[in-house]
């Protein structure tokens, strides 16, 4: 069956530009997460969506970061005025209500020059 998909797989951008990353969760998964993985580090929680509840934005590192999700479908993570320290792999995960387990997408590797 289809897993979590993310696009683009790689994104190279210039400092100061805005980028938008997309996540398609597994159908029927009500919860969706965004994480960031910097080189040589573990995963860093960014934001969490659960159904129609207000998202948990406690992990967003600055107001340049924002994310949206329409219902229980696609989510987009937007980074405005990108900085070099934003370079990382951005991972999306959706969670099965029945197994309470997160399933990860392949990630988007963002490089800010």
């Amino acid at each position, binding site marked *: 069956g289809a897993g979590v998909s993310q696009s683009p797989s790689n994104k190279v951008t210039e400092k100061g530009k805005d980028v938008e990353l997309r996540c398609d969760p597994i159908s029927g998964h009500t919860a969706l997460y965004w994480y960031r993985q910097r080189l040589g*580090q573990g*995963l860093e*929680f960014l934001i969490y969506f659960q159904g129609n509840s207000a998202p948990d934005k406690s992990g967003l590192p600055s107001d340049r970061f924002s994310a949206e999700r329409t219902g229980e479908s696609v989510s987009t993570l937007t980074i405005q005025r990108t900085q070099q320290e934003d370079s990382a792999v951005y991972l999306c995960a959706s969670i099965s209500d029945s197994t309470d387990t997160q*399933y990860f997408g392949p990630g988007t590797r963002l490089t800010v020059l």
Partner: protein
Amino acid sequence: AQSVSQHNHHVILSEAASLELGCNYSYGGTVNLFWYVQYPGQHLQLLLKYFSGDPLVKGIKGFEAEFIKSKFSFNLRKPSVQWSDTAEYFCAVDGYNKLIFGAGTRLAVHP
């Protein structure tokens, strides 16, 4: 604040050697614990998880982990590693609505 510590950042083993990767967490409440694996060029995959019950959890590919509540530990073990186990391993705790990950352990298995 919740945190997860993985003591070994890099581990190098020969095939057939035994493996134990340490994981300690700090969280006072009920926890769900996970080990994820990321093979080279692939995305994160669930290796095993502990929610409740038997503290010795068996996962895929011969891996197991033991939850020791008194030590706040959830160490990953495998009695005999293979070259194909070369990957990065992440321990994670789910305290409330989010996974908190350790920094990861890179395992290299030499034939």
